[in-house]
């Protein structure tokens, strides 16, 4: 591991700022397996080497202590950590249970304007093809 070598790897990864719909081009600075900074992408067609204060600090929330790190399930009123297998099974059972008992339109999905195109696509496919409802929306209106 680079971390143990005293030789931290450093690289720049081109990406897109996620703090508004302008979509400025960023270069994420990666030191080891941590984000260490954000730089503007000079040849980007929209931002042409500029970023606003949110863009310059877009890496900061990623290593926040408030990040969720493990799946959780409610037991006796409290959310407690669990493993992925148990958590996913509980979700599948929760959604399928409502569908089987009350019909597909008793289930709803909130997609997200903060997730990728691929993720939004897959969530609406899950709602429509796997559960059988068009109850899928996101916060475009909010």
């Amino acid at each position, binding site marked *: 591991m680079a971390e143990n070598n005293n030789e931290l790897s450093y*690289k720049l*990864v081109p*990406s897109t*700022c996620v*703090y*508004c*719909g*302008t*979509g400025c081009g960023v270069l*994420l600075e990666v030191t080891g*397996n941590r*984000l260490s900074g954000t730089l503007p992408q000079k040849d980007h*067609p929209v931002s042409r080497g500029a970023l606003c*204060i949110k863009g310059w*600090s877009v890496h*900061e929330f*990623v290593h*926040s202590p*408030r*990040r*969720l790190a493990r*799946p959780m*399930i*409610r037991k006796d009123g409290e*959310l407690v950590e669990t493993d*992925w297998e148990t958590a*996913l*099974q*509980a*979700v*599948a059972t*929760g959604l399928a*249970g409502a569908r089987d008992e009350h019909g*597909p*339109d008793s*289930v*709803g999905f*909130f*997609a*997200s*304007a*903060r997730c*990728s*195109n*691929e*993720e*939004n696509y897959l*969530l*609406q496919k*899950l709602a*429509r*093809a*796997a559960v059988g409802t*068009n*109850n899928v929306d*996101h*916060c*475009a*209106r*909010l």
Partner: protein
Amino acid sequence: MTNSIGELEDAEAILVVGSNTTEQHPIIGEKILAAVRKGARLVVIDPRSIHLSEFAEVFLRPRPGTEVAYLNGLINAIVSEGLEDVEFIAARTEGFEELKKSVAEYTPQKVEEISGVPAEDLEAAARIYAGAGSASIVYCMGITQHSTGTDNVLSLANLAMLTGNIGRPGTGVNPLRGQNNVQGACDLGGLPNVYTGYQKVADEDVARKFEEAWGVEGLSRQPGLTITEMTDKASEGELHALFIMGENPMVSDPDINHVREALQKLDFLAVVDIMENETMEFAHVVLPAASFAEKDGTITNTERRVQRIRKAIEPVGEAKADWEIIALLGSKMGASGFDFASPQEIFEEIRRVTPSYAGITYERLGTQGLQWPCPAEDHPGTPILHMESFPIGRGRFTPCEFREPAETPDAEYPLVLTTGRLLFHYHTGTMTRRSPSLVREIDRAFVEVNPADASELGIRDGEAVKVSSRRGSVEVNAKVTEKVGKGIIFMPFHFAEAAANTLTNSALDPVSKIPELKVCAASIEKL
């Protein structure tokens, strides 16, 4: 946006309405300021003084909720001075005579009575917009988050078609999308009435196409519920299970007390997020998601540019990308068609079912992206829409009548509350409020009050006050400022501990179903 962001710099005139661009879309705001430096004439319409209004040749400050009235007034002034684009109207539009008739009563004098905008300022704005060789309209939630949101947008389209400001560089009707991938979430079918590329769920041919592509039978032809409708159904006990990915309705949605009651009633709630949030309190299962830096994918910006995000680091803890979570869940539920090994594989399926994305590949996107519609792999993408014609052939003028907002001030709630965002924060603050550089700038809610109202109520700058509406109340500090007009108060909605959305009204636009977050009746008292 019908046009591209870069074109703004070369527009001869720009009309900014209901968008605090330098705070919400700073880099687009910068393009507008660059245009002004190059000599563009700027008109700003906003109930609050904003940074851009200092650079405007004409600044109109209407009462919130009177958009249709003043936009009809602009059309009235343009037509009565003969400034409309006769050729464009004849060649590309229909319904002009009806429009003309419908705006006849919206004289600048009458609009002044309704909106408080001085008649001569409205006329000056009309001359700047209609007189320019190329004029661009830039708008945001100040136009859409109203119970008349659809009419407001249609009125802007009327204005652009009337003056031939569509289909050429530096023109267009340009909504700025707030969150980074609102455009993409809409394009990819994250809406109750359409599949990807706005293909309607109620259309039999479309439904068959998706049944075949997905290898399933009996897809529902019945449009589903919007977020606010799902909340209502949950509180009525008709929606039993809810899956929330990357949303925090306990801060972002109107009338939070109602949202809480709805979430508590659910038999099952799953929340997938990158960060602890207020909505988790009601969840039965919480799944940790990878952030944008921990996964590959694409997002689509406000000018329809599809762009890459790239995995830079391994996911934090045991977090998984949302696509992976959904894929695992699909398989767990026994569905086929969810065994994807990468976002690129999902994108390949998207291309096959979405004509406007068909020509886009990960390889082509590179670090520059591509603007849809891009129907084929040799298509260069589309920076400007509607150059030759509209999707429906001729552009149709739609007459709109002014209606008052769902809630207007009265004796008990004498003020108009409007809400918005700040430069330093993003939506419900789950990310920006964990960012030291941004929290250093501001990390507290406030309410802006006009000095005249403040002195009537005996409120001094910085004092703690209670702001109330029919739905609840919050305590915040007052900022006494000329930024808001008399009778108007403003609150940012990012701050969960003094959530502006405790107060807002969930009254909906009948067509777009957008809630009226920009106007409700409120009162304020000293604590």
